[in-house]
């Protein structure tokens, strides 16, 4: 079934790589009617566009409370997934499995947490240049109050040189492809549309559960028919669940740690070993080159290479890319059971993929992004990190599974006390401190211990990104 691109919001299928300026607004709804009117005025970008013709984009998503504020019937909200309805900070269990504890616990968040005003709407703004974004932003901000909306938080973003993230590594090299949309991704990296867009067959060949509506609840026939039940109208179709997490990166702590652990006997720093350790943690060199392609040194020729496997690159034992490296955990490709190295392993892995749409925020400590400059810089003010955004249709089987079973799991793939060296929670969801990083090697492994938590959560939310017809349906609730 071809995707109905004209009904799907653009950000779901595309990352807007050409629109490097972005800003996220978290809004509260104070007046239902006014907010509904506002929805009708928005020029929401669908996924049917030519990147070169577009200078600005607007997309929108809602929390469960936001849908309620818009007047969506309680019984319909009840048909959304449990994870979405409970919210990212909804239960202690969820905080455990996500690792949202200690400094990252929701009662210490800046937004979306238990002590913050509840966001209802997430408005995503993108512009080709600074000017395009600022015009779009001021247009939107000026109208908020008159449409019964309250600005809770404005989250700005930045774009770092060479597409890097703050630790100094090329960002976003690995992107999951959607079947029928992205034709250039390798087959092992191309996943059924229903894993990301509701209303299409998922990796099990099923239609993921989503809210379906009786005809009498949609008398104006605003919604599409449910493909798996023609009698019902589909509120979920062409929509998706959006996970948003503001991840603050302690760049200085990261490089200090790598620096201290790689000092020479005489105490002098060893820049080469330092970068090597950091790259082992990531699984790529700073240029983006995967370790399985070039295990000994950075080789910019492969800096955008994402067409590789682990067993398929004769790295079953992690001698090139460590078993616990960040990219090997978050996308194990062919390395896990059943039958590692087989197509079946890849196929099972496809049931745990997400589409990442994050943006960087905060000024870099050193414009050069070099470790030496980061270490030499004085105490830099401000905060920096990643506004992590991802799409999936089954938050429990996709985002939360990756977070708990792969990232935060000290026992991942036969390890013992190693959680994700870069973004791991150091053990809260497994009752066992992680913080060890093992580098498999012949004849014998080395390991570093005592990794602090480099990444903390500052705010988060689970949102529903509706299709455009569903958006019109929401705007018409109670009329």
């Amino acid at each position, binding site marked *: 079934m071809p995707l109905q691109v004209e009904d799907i919001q653009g950000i779901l299928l595309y990352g807007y790589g050409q629109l490097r300026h972005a800003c996220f607004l978290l809004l509260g709804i104070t007046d239902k009617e006014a907010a509904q009117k506002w929805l009708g005025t928005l020029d929401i970008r669908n996924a049917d566009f030519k990147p070169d013709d577009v200078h600005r984009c607007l997309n929108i998503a809602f929390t469960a409370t936001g849908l309620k504020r818009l007047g969506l019937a309680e019984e319909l909200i009840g048909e959304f997934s449990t994870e979405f309805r409970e919210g990212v900070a909804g*239960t202690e269990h969820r905080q455990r499995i996500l690792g949202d504890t200690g400094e990252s616990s929701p009662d210490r968040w800046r937004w979306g947490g238990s002590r913050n005003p509840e966001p209802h709407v997430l408005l995503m703004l993108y512009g080709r240049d600074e000017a395009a974004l600022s015009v779009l932003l001021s247009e939107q901000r000026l109208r908020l109050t008159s449409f019964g909306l309250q600005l809770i938080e404005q989250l700005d973003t930045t774009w770092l040189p060479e597409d890097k993230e703050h630790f100094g590594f090329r960002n976003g090299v690995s992107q999951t492809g959607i079947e029928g949309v992205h034709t250039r991704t390798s087959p092992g990296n191309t996943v059924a549309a229903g894993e990301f867009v509701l209303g299409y067959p998922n990796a099990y060949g099923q239609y993921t559960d989503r809210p379906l509506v009786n005809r009498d609840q949609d008398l104006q026939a605003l919604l599409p028919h449910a493909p798996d039940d023609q009698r019902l109208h589909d509120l979920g179709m062409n929509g998706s669940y959006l996970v948003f997490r503001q991840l603050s990166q302690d760049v200085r702590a990261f490089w200090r740690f790598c620096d201290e652990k790689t000092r020479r006997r005489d105490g002098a720093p060893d820049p080469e070993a330092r970068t090597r350790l950091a790259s082992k943690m990531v699984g790529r060199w700073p240029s983006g080159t995967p370790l399985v392609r070039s295990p000994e040194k950075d080789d910019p020729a492969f800096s955008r290479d994402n067409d590789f496997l682990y067993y398929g690159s004769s790295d079953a034992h992690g001698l090139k890319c460590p078993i616990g490296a960040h990219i090997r955990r978050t996308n194990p490709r062919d390395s896990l059971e059943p039958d590692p190295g087989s197509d079946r392993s890849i196929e099972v892995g496809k049931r745990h993929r997400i589409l990442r749409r994050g943006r960087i925020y905060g000024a870099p400590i050193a414009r050069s992004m070099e470790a030496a400059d980061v270490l030499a810089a004085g105490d830099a003010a401000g905060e920096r990190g990643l506004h992590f955004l991802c799409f999936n249709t089954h938050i429990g089987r996709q985002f939360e599974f990756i977070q708990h079973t792969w990232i935060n799991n000290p026992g991942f793939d*036969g390890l013992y006390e190693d959680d994700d060296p870069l973004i791991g929670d150091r053990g809260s969801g497994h009752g066992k401190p992680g913080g060890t990083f093992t580098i498999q090697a012949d*004849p014998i*492994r080395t390991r570093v211990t005592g990794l602090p938590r480099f990444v903390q959560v500052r705010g988060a939310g689970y949102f529903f990104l509706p299709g455009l017809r569903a958006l019109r349906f929401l705007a018409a609730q109670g009329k």
Partner: protein
Amino acid sequence: MPHQEALTVIARIRPGQVQTVKGILGTIAGHRGRWDIVPFAKLANVHFARFVVFDETADLDGNPIPPQLAMMTNVDAPLDAHLRDLTTTCGDGLDKVFDQCEDYPAPAGRTPAARLAFLRQHHKRARAFYVNRQGRTVQQIVREEQLRRAINEYLDSADLTRHSPEMIRGAIVAFVAGRSDLRWALYPPKPPLTLWRIQQIVNLVVYPLVAIVLLPLLLLLSPVLFLLLRAHERRDIPDTSRAPAEMVRRLRADEDFLMQNQVTAAGLFKPGWFRFLLATAILQLTDYAVRHIYNRGSLSGLSSIHFARWVPLDGRRRLFFSSNYDGSLESYMDDFIDKAAWGLNAIFSSGDGFPRTCFLFCGGIADEKAYKRFLPTRQVQTSVWYSAYPHLTTKNIANNAAIRQGLSGHMSADETRTWLRRFGVGNQLPESGFIARLLDRIRWDRLCHCK
């Protein structure tokens, strides 16, 4: 080394006393590993233990089934010694917990002997009992982890990276030999006792013999049995209801405090003699398979289960399943769907309400939505749960055993290299047996096309 056993003691709770019992037991989330009414940690041979209350319910004909309390342990043999331990070391706790159960000795007569008689009388044998790897005792598992930790710390402190594999192995052996608290590891563990091994071999041989005798009859009947099966599969009505949200939240609240989790689920058998005979046969086959085919750490490609048991409840009316496994319930369910759907379909499709199977092995659990909706409707909240080694995965345990094994005996250059890798990561499981590999290669999902 002794083999492992499953103890299941089930007793009826006196009318109106369910809440009292639940109050004494509390919840897993409430205990966070600390619950000392029955101090399992004081018994050196208990791997896992739990208390579960099966609420009052009704069978398919509407006959009431009274509430029951179950105590389950996974222990090193002999079971009798474990029972004695329980009645002495944990006597007071048992008195408190079983106080409201029928047949439990009256307060005046609560002697170890009386408790022992009660436990024996109420012990239910599991129809099938899965052990990740038979013969590993609690003591062995705990000590081998201490061994691995010590060697790893030694490797951190001694820079051996420039030495040859043989020299590194020699250095590790010398380190262990130099530590009086680790020297035991230089000798491989003893295999399980001869008597148990003889029983296993008899079991291994007898069932195929019975099968050979029955084969002509089965072949003759197979067209009829096949038609009957399909007729039942078409007629059985899957339960598509959803467990109450509050119930699911309560279950989740008890999960993911540790590397391991537990699950208990109970269901009624489907009605009719055909389903009953089929279920009996399949459980018998399951028992055979987990003893002789899936006995090297992998249950049909699923390596995360430490122990699992299938036990009949209320005569022929119900069956319950309980297991101790690594990771989250979500990953556990996904493992079932992705790796072991065929076998679990065969077993659980005799349960009332199970998602529709076709040809016994297909459909069923492979329907992700139906399965994830169904399981919580049959889950039973475990009140108390104990693990002797909550931070070890099955792979960790297997790797530790291989590390210890490698401290003695001769090794080729290749074997030495492979053994040294075990200090970096333990993801290389022993290869499954021939029949298991054969079964694992079948793509059940492609074999039958079900509508």
